[in-house]
């Protein structure tokens, strides 16, 4: 059932959701003296407010000998602060009627609370405590080491296809830090001294490396005063934030490999190098992926899955990455279909896009889908807060929440064909076959075969 539930998730989630908003999202933005960038969006329709803070630190900022630090902090920073005892962070939020969470990516780390609007001050207090003087001590570090190991077991080791991204990225990148997984190396985390965690905190958790984004039932002037009250006294870090400068050299030959996993059905994964998010070609590549995968009528779904019955699930998805990234095509083979057959069917679809310009009608479908997704994307204040922070952090332009759609609408049919020819090539890709572990365990079973 695991395979099927994965497919269900895939079918119901829209493919492209970061399009922003079409009726204008009004917002105010400014910077505190300590460098903290603040974005405020007022929407009084529901009495709730989202308080969020995004730090421009992800796994790509890590020391190659200390991977997993950025994600580790996402855990550590729920441990409390000088004024918040261990275990109290969660209690304060839930007993105020709020919800909270956090997530980590290659490029950034994000924390948020959604609270009743009379608890805005609480949200700001909690996030300012986190930034000013989080509790980083050996008890918390020890506890979270175990938790992260548990998380890895749960999400990577024990989930069918859970290691796909990790296995793909480590072959797609030879020198760039995207080559290691966000969750990092358990050995590195074990080896790290408490002092190293403190240094990481002091380096990256400084106001000039963060965006505070609030959205919901607030009054702009009151919110400004509260932000001032809780954040102004936090000192600027005052140092350069380390960022990787290494550039991944172009891949020149196809890389192929096999991974054995605890799965029932084989999978084919292809990872194509594509330009960084926000570049012209990235928008064209996104629309190519959409042509291939969004909706039941998309090329891969219709042909490979429904008509040829070669896959239970198949699609291609560009990763949003600040440095040049990848688009990953992923297919789970139907019962009795070999990975070779599935791969050939997927490749045939790319060839069609490369050789035949897509029709006006199909192109219009893509633009209609984009419009729908763009308008629907920011229906909740928590989503608006995150999008505003994202657009500012990556592009220095929070107003892209209103205008990014134009960049998609600038893409032509010829662009889609051109990027297919330019990036979806053999020498530009990594191909992985995921095969059931029982294939590898075979000798073990033949032992038993002859024990009679």
């Amino acid at each position, binding site marked *: *059932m695991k395979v099927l539930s*994965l497919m269900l998730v*895939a079918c119901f989630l829209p*493919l*492209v*959701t970061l399009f922003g908003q079409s*009726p204008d999202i009004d917002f105010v933005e400014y910077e505190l003296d300590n460098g903290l960038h603040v974005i405020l969006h007022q929407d009084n329709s529901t*009495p709730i407010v989202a308080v969020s803070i995004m730090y421009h630190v992800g796994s790509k900022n890590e020391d190659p000998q200390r991977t997993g630090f950025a994600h580790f902090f*996402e855990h550590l920073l729920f441990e409390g602060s000088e*004024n*918040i005892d261990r275990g109290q962070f*969660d209690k304060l939020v*839930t007993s105020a*009627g709020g919800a909270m*969470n*956090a*997530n*980590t*990516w290659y490029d950034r780390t994000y924390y948020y609370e959604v609270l*009743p609007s*009379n*608890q805005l*001050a609480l949200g700001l207090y909690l996030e300012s405590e986190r930034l000013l*003087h989080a509790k980083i001590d050996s008890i918390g570090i*020890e506890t*979270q080491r175990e*938790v992260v190991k*548990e998380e890895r*077991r749960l999400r*990577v*080791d*024990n*989930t*069918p296809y859970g290691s796909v991204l*990790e296995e793909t990225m480590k072959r797609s990148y030879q020198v760039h830090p995207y080559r290691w997984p966000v*969750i990092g190396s358990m050995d590195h985390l074990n080896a790290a001294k408490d002092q190293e965690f403190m240094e990481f905190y002091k380096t990256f958790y400084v106001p000039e490396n963060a965006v505070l984004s609030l959205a919901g039932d607030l009054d702009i002037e009151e919110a400004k005063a509260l932000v001032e009250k809780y954040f*102004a006294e936090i*000192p600027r870090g005052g140092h350069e934030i380390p960022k990787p400068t290494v550039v991944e050299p172009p891949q020149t030959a196809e890389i192929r490999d096999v991974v054995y996993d*605890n799965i*029932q059905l*084989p999978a084919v994964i292809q990872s194509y190098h594509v330009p960084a998010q926000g570049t012209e070609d990235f928008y064209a590549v996104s629309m190519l992926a959409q042509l291939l995968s969004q909706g039941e*009528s998309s090329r891969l779904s219709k042909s490979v899955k429904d008509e040829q*019955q070669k896959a239970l699930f198949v699609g291609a*998805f560009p990763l949003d990455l600040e440095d040049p990234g990848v688009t990953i095509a992923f297919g789970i*083979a139907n019962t*009795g*279909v070999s990975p*070779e057959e599935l791969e050939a069917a997927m490749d045939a679809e790319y060839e069609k896009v490369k050789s035949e310009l897509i029709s006006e009608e199909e192109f219009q*479908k893509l633009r209609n889908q984009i419009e729908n997704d763009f*308008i*629907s994307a920011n229906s*909740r204040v928590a989503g608006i807060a995150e999008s505003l922070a994202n657009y500012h952090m990556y592009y220095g332009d929070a107003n892209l929440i209103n205008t990014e759609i134009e960049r998609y609408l600038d893409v032509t049919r010829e662009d889609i064909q051109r990027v297919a020819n330019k990036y979806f090539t053999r020498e530009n890709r990594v191909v992985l076959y995921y*095969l059931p572990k029982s*294939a590898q365990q075979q*000798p073990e079973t033949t032992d*038993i*075969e*002859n*024990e*009679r």
Partner: protein
Amino acid sequence: MKILTIQLLIGLVLFSCATTKTTSRVDDADQKDVAEEVLTPADQSTGQPTTGSLDRSHPPEPGPAPVIQLGTAEAFTMDNGLKVFVVENHKLPRVAFSLVLDLDAIYEGDNAGYISTAGQLLSRGTTTRSKSQIDQEVDFIGASLSTSASGVYGSSLTKHMDRLLELMADVTLNPSFPQEELDKIKTETISGLQANKDDPGAIASNVRGVLRYGKDHPYGELITEETVSRIDIEACKAFYETYFKPNIGYLAIVGDIDKDQAYQLVDKYFGQWEKGDVPEHEYDKTTAPESTRVALVDRPQSVQSTINITYPVELKTGDPDVLKGRVMNTILGGGFSSYLMQNLRETHGYTYGAGSSLSSDRLIGSFNASADVRNEVTDSAVVEFMNELRRIREEPVDEELLQSIKNYITGSFARSLESPSTIANFAINVDRYDLPEDYYSNYLKRIQEVTVSDVMEMAQKYIKPDNAYILVVGKASEVAEGLKQFGPVQYYDIYGEPYTPTTAADLSGEIEVGQVIEKYLEALGGAESLRNIQDIKQVMTTNMQGLDLQITSIRKAPNMSFETVAAGDMEFQKQVFNGTEGVEVVQGQSKPLDDKRIQESLVESRIIPELAYGELGVELTLTGLEKVGDEESYVVEIAQPSGKKSYAYYSKESGLKLKESTTLETPQGSFTQSVEYEDYREVDGVKFPYKAIISMGPQKMEAEVVSIELNTGVTDDVFKLD
């Protein structure tokens, strides 16, 4: 958003949620330290102001509570009886339509599953559109459309709503039920069910339903591969024709639309939908057991036990107790600070998460408390569950905790209002379940009014530690004994059929382990002819999801072996043992066998290991009688000197070996691997199985023998380690 989407898609989720922060399955000792640390904040930090003038020692007080206003829904009923609820929300230029049929639960019987299949089939073709035309048209307007047995959902931008509603009406009114689409759905459903057989959560869910309601109740009947295989187009059509009627329908329309527009659209597309009488169904009430009983589903490969403490409750949707019961259940098992979570996870470290639910239903409600725990703490965990169930009945809840729970429920309610469909659902519920008009507008007020004694009253009424089924899906040989303290233990198979296992004690006097082995050797052809086998060459093939594999195995007495697995010219793996040492080659990488593997090879490289168990120091124990397929078989535990344990199953009737299983420890956790043997055929007077069904966790594959040759004069060169 997109990040999470992609992560989910490829099964990798990198975010972590706050409530996992202190989770771990560290050693008990560690866990205790952590727990004490949390519980006794012996306080390094009652807090001096740290920086500047702001006093940070206490969290800020909240402002005055905001007024939570519920939007309104406008309602009208069409001539054909369809009830329509419109919630205007013009923030975004989009609109969603949700059609829900108010169906009674239906008992499906021997083709169970046909109802949900019928629901899926609606969007797989209409009298004027094929599946791919429907997909194409929906995608072209950037819309979404889905169907189920109880309704149809669609959403789009306002400017496309006319088109969307036309499509929705087409799948609702004119489905064509194509046979080939039915076949596809059945195949998908059956592969899902096959995978479920090995999933402890799915097993628990099936057996839970059988225990609570019985198999003759719509909530207790099971969908199986057999019932799905019996589904035909006629059953799906009959369901549709009988039940898809507007007079039992609710249509919620939410978004950028007004009442007049909504009326016109509904009239245009659903006005012709003809009403009809829809049968109603009633079922006998089911009740909680008179005393607590243990229901055990044996899953020998389990390393965790899935515990469910459950029983039906008399709690109808809309009953005034529902709201107070929600507060009570949230305290018991509804979140991170609940009794169950604090006890089982934070204090004892038995589990990643424990919780409970109290569900109301128009037919019959239910209570369920659950957790997955390590085998060795199964009974201890049940003890703690029972302690907490008793505690909430007997001990008044702490006022501060109660208030915090009320705030939590209030906050969730407020957040849910961000979605305009919530208001539509409220309006539909009021109509559908005959709720008081102010049910939702006064919901938060009534939550705030819940008292400590209300909580206790609810607990005494609905929490029944002495009338519960304690359902455990787990490894019976390790957990059964400890569960006896809670009540009589009844075994169930994965379909909820009770059975009585035969234990070793029951077998004493009937047969001894040595006799089982002798009988086996006799069945193969007798010890004499077996000892005459000097060497054996066996070739098998298997198809692993499209990949044709060839397995070659050569053995020579007394204990030399050579095995390879290859696909065509590509050799995946090879293992050679020359009688004293060995080597394993995996994809070109060669590695000598370690001492433990050598020790095991001394046993496993024998042509017939059973002949030599005595001299090799292998210990055998008869552990009981179990069924392999339909055949009763003796279960023998085989303990090698290396410590490796496996189980062999010998048919009671024929004496032949039907199955072997081993639990393997791998970096990814432990897996149970088993091999079932079928189709024994004679080769030079000795019987060999020609078919083997190999299971590894949830994966299954069949291997078939191509050839077996005996005594061909295999030379020692074959077993050279180069």
